[in-house]
């Protein structure tokens, strides 16, 4: 192998200084701006989780008051959902990869892309202001009439922050949709696109169709709180349940905003580390769209105990079961891809395997919750908490970290310490399960969520969960260290360290600002591991 050298000209050395970053239009640099943002807010949200788990280590509510505890879980949820999980994969990995994977020079609207980062940061600033000036106690769900009439905490600045950040999500989705429609390189047909593009496209559809609804909902809450308008005020004939319908019309699909891109990442990882075409490519592609469409029709399963009609509950229950079909298609197809594949166990693959297992558990317990009767039994218990953490942490964060490790050599041009990376993937997997599996049992036994104290018989399981959370926290800190370290000291990666196929591996690491020296002409299918195409293999 020839000596690997850095390309003389790439996006990271195309201009130095703070202004070259803050005014950049390059999607790759904007991806890194987002990376800094979401990482920061991930650790802010994580800090609240630490305090929650510390409080729950003992049955008595002894560390913080009940009111403070309400604020802790609210701010953990708000930070993690709106400022980490939703933007993480689309705005970081999607931003970096969408143009490169389809052979374009940039997203269709580079200025809008930069604007979306500023909008994200502005929204984060409002919400941070709400947090440092006293916090918020409504839960991340902002349920009325508590949020409009009773809560005395910083509802308005927090809600404003989420409203504003929503527009960054809308603009990112819009940019991806237009880019994928209009900017594909010659020969890059829809069915030659990597599956990460399909899942990003499906995610973008949800972003542009769902986010405006949460925007108007938050605006109505704000108008009710500030101007005493009465949209959800029962004393004036308004309906608080209408708020829940509008809220979940966005916030359930938002779960798919979080997990669909992770599924796309997993398709890339499984193909690359099994050296195989993804089994049933078209099915996986359409499963993404199927999840996006069905995801809009199931919000009522959050409201089985909220005074919804029985018939509506039955329909929502059945529709919720249907979402399992495209989700299972993906899991089966990844597994089938691995079958008789030439599997290599590099770090990203460990995350992929972790995702498949944990997502399966999260998804199957989701079916428990889609059944009306069982859901009534475990509503507002730790079973729910465990279920959605299996999807969001076990699914989304596993996918995000797997993708970050897989494309890190492309992003930075350098390799991280593989042994340390494998070790931390293992730590995260163990810590995650120890944190959240006991919560399934706690919930099934009847421990309610959102209380700072609990009966002593739940202590053993809670201590296990808190211990797991400490391990998980350490697991998240290790990659911070070795990834930063690799930026300066890591071995040079070369353009294709994994021997993977896909347009991103045909350009240099890091890529030049315009991504490709010449616009690529695509004559092969995605994941064409069987028949190497000339000029396509590293």
């Amino acid at each position: 192998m020839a000596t690997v050298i850095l390309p003389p000209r790439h996006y990271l050395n195309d201009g130095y200084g703070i202004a070259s970053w803050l005014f950049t239009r390059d999607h790759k640099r904007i991806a890194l701006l987002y990376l800094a943002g979401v990482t920061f807010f991930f650790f802010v949200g994580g800090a609240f989780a630490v305090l929650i788990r510390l409080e729950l280590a003992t049955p008595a509510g002894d560390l913080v008051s009940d009111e403070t505890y309400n604020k802790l879980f609210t701010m953990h949820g708000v930070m993690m959902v709106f400022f980490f999980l939703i933007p993480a994969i689309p705005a970081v990995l999607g931003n970096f990869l969408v143009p490169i994977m389809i052979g374009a020079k940039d997203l269709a609207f580079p200025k809008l892309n930069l604007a979306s980062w500023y909008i994200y940061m502005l929204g984060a600033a409002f919400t941070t202001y709400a947090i440092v000036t006293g916090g918020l106690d409504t839960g991340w769900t902002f349920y009325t009439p508590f949020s409009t009439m009773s809560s005395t905490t910083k509802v308005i600045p927090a809600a404003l922050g989420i409203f504003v950040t929503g527009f960054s999500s809308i603009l990112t989705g819009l940019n991806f949709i237009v880019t994928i429609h209009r900017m594909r390189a010659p020969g890059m047909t829809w069915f030659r696109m990597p599956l990460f593009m399909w899942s990003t496209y499906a995610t973008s559809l949800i972003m542009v169709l769902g986010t405006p609804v949460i925007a108007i909902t938050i605006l109505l809450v704000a108008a009710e709180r500030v101007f005493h308008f009465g949209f959800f005020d029962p004393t004036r004939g308004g309906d608080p349940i209408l708020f829940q319908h509008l809220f979940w019309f966005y916030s359930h699909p938002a779960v798919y905003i979080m997990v669909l891109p992770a599924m796309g990442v997993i398709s890339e990882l499984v193909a690359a580390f099994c050296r195989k075409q993804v089994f049933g490519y078209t099915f996986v592609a359409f499963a993404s769209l199927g999840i996006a469409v069905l995801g809009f029709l199931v919000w009522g399963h959050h409201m089985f105990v909220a005074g919804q009609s029985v018939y509506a509950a039955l329909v929502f229950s059945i529709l919720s079961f249907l979402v399992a079909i495209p989700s299972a298609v993906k899991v089966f197809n990844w597994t089938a891809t691995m079958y008789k594949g030439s599997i290599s166990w590099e770090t990203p693959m460990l995350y992929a395997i972790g995702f498949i297992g944990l997502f399966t558990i999260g998804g199957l317990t989701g079916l428990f919750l889609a059944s009306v009767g069982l859901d009534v039994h475990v509503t507002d218990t730790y079973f729910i908490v465990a279920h959605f953490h299996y999807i969001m942490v076990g699914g989304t964060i596993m996918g995000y970290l797997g993708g970050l490790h897989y494309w890190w050599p492309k992003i930075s041009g350098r390799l991280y310490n593989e042994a340390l990376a494998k070790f931390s993937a293992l730590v995260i997997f163990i810590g995650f399960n120890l944190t959240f599996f006991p919560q399934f049992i706690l919930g099934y036994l009847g421990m309610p969520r959102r209380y700072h104290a609990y009966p002593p018989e739940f202590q053993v399981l809670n201590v296990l969960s808190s211990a797991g959370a400490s391990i998980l926290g350490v697991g998240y800190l290790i990659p911070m260290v070795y990834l930063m370290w690799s930026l300066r000291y890591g071995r040079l990666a070369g353009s294709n360290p994994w021997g993977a196929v896909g347009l991103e591996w045909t350009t240099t690491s890091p890529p030049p600002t315009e991504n490709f020296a010449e616009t690529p002409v695509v004559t092969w299918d995605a994941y064409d591991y069987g028949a190497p195409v000339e000029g396509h293999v590293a």
Partner: protein
Amino acid sequence: MLPEATHHAHHPALAHHFDSLGQQKEAATLGMWVFLGTEVLFFGGMFLAYAIYRAWYPAAFAVASHELDITLGTINTVVLITSSLTMALAVHAAQLGQRKLVLWFLVATMVLGAVFLGIKSVEYYHKFEEHHVPGPGFQFEPEYFRHAQLFFSLYFIMTGLHALHMVIGLGIMLVMFWWTWRGSITADYYNPIEISGLYWHFVDIVWIFLFPLLYLIGRHGV
């Protein structure tokens, strides 16, 4: 350095990451349509709330609706539809590269938009004087006091957000005026005018729904 920089002279409006002006135009147009899709969902939340509450409280909604000034509302509807006409004429003139005509039609569109907002503020002022703004100062006949507040809450938020979209539209028209004035808009590059027109028409269409839903409820029965 860039290989493609050498093959042909670029149109000054062509951004570096597009291959052709046609591709750029298609991208911008699709972008605006997707954006308008998000707007439909944005207003949709309010239309949903309106539909539910009107179905629940039809009598209160009809009575409260009669408090709106149907004359001013009708005039405003005509004003707005006319502004859509001048907007469409501006796009047509831009396609033909008739710069002066574009400028005149843009001015006409802006004037009509401003007239609409002026009449709207007169209506708001009347509602304020009549204590029809929801909240602690709200006054209404006791029978419909509670539910009429829902109607006026919806009236103010729906027409208010519509008016905000008009203000943004006026801002866009000012930019279009400036671009046309300095000569950036030509017969082979008029897409900014066209997609601004899409936005303007969309805002008009929202009003076409708002007017009957808010002003004309139960007119046939009175």
